[in-house]
């Protein structure tokens, strides 16, 4: 128990340290953050918007918010990044509707190379409801525990677990 608590405190300190350095304009800290989170943020954006182009557009906004925004940093950096990502998608939704046609053209122009397995994965993802998709993303990309997810989206823990494993079953059948 004791080592776990120590580890949690150290993780918390590390997260706070990294964010403090980022806020102070430390370029090395920016790079580190980029290396750690870029992939996961982009994946989350892609699965939430179903568009590579829009995910890329929002990606810059997310980084802008995190690196230069004036938000209170949560103790858990993973959770902070997920919240910023989700907020950015909501903010972008309005603009997206206005320029849908334009986006579609740009989307079509983007050349995407996805493996068969990747396509199968996408197919299952699009069949899932928005909440189920969020549960998968929070747990797999941002290391949320089921308890944390339950607290965040207002479901019971057992309901979150049930929905998660139901989705995993669908993935396994398809993959």
């Amino acid at each position, binding site marked *: 128990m004791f080592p776990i608590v120590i580890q949690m405190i150290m993780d918390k300190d590390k997260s706070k340290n990294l964010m403090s350095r980022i806020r102070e304009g430390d370029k090395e800290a920016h790079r580190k953050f980029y290396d750690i989170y870029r992939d996961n943020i982009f*994946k989350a954006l892609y699965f939430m918007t179903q568009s590579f182009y829009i995910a890329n557009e929002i990606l*810059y906004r997310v980084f802008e918010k995190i690196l230069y925004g004036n938000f209170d940093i949560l103790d858990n950096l993973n959770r902070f990044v997920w919240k910023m990502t989700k907020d950015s998608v909501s903010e972008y939704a309005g603009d997206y509707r206005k320029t849908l046609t334009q986006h579609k053209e740009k989307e079509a122009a983007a050349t995407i190379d996805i493996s068969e*397995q990747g396509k199968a994965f996408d197919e299952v993802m699009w069949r899932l409801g928005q909440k189920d998709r969020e549960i998968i993303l929070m747990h797999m990309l941002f290391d949320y525990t089921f308890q944390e997810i339950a607290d965040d989206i207002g479901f019971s823990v*057992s309901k979150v677990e049930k929905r998660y494993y139901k989705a995993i079953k669908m993935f*396994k059948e398809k993959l």
Partner: protein
Amino acid sequence: MAKKIDDELVKNVLRSHIKQLGFTGKESYGSYEEFSAELDARIEARKIADEATAKDFGLPTRSQIIEVRRNNRRIARKKQIWINTVAVAMSAVLIFSLIGIILYFNIRGDDDEVFNIPEDNLIMTVIDYDTLQEQGFFVPNISSLDNVIIRRADDRVSGTTKLFVIMGDFDGSRMTMRIIFHEIFEPSDMSYFQSGSLIDVGEYTVRVSNTQYNDEYIYRMLFIQDTKTYYIEFTTQNRGEYLLLLNTLFSVTIENKPNPPDGDTVKTEIKIDELPTTTLNFDGLDDMTARRVDHRETENTIMFIIEGYFGDSHMTMRMIVDSEYIPSDASYFGGGNMLQVNDRFVRANITQNGDNYIHRFIFLEDMKWCYVELVSLDSNEYLPFLYDIFQQ
């Protein structure tokens, strides 16, 4: 509980999935430097666009809005810190106050224990009558009591209050007298005297209250003398005994007729003319006898006890020739009702004992207190009875 399924495969696909993605025609994301440059360019472009828009519409720029918000947040945070500090300070004051109150009552608790001293801790001696007198006590005639011992408990009381407890037997009855060296001190037993009566014993006025416990009567008497409070508890099986005790203690003679057992009661056929009332009608009562026990209370108080039957119900009426006198039974009427029988007001209370209903009434008749107990099998018998004696 959801059935757990191994999700490692799905996680692996998700991990490798993105590495195969490109966007805007590129195979990979590009380097951090490229990303960073693009990010800075976008931020700068937006800033310029914001400022242009703000200028066109005369609005504050985004950075100005952010600055204002930041300031507001800073002020709010400072305010919150102040609120927290005040709350913590108030909590601390509250906690310390509570601790203080608890400690205070703990300390006070030690004082109060004086009335419950374990007997082992007391100095119990046969009373030294002369010493008491030398110490300035008003000395009642305690030597008349048998086996009198003094429990000197003065060291147990704080401040100016000292306490002597004197115990003794009086013809088979037990007496405990507490002498408290403080005129202002009120024993907690004072509540007993709210329904008691005042009795003049020589030059002293003694406040008396009595309660019955099984076949024993507990008389409580209180008087103040020479800035000392004297509190007596007298436990006896004879109701009249307390007057004898007072007579003895105060070396006076109050004409007293102790309440005799029924067999010795002087019972006479009632003579209406002898009764100190002219308005009550006793004609309807059968077999009426009067137990005239006058001079039972003080020199000014005369009491008649009148007994009789009303149908099958048994009636006892005490008639007290003193409107100042408050019968100790008045406590029954705390939960009673006020009845109006024509122009008279009667305070009534009813209790049940087995099959019997005990009706108690108290009313003022010709400036005399009349206290009636009617024991009846009928819970409504009291109304015909009242109509009868009031000639309604």
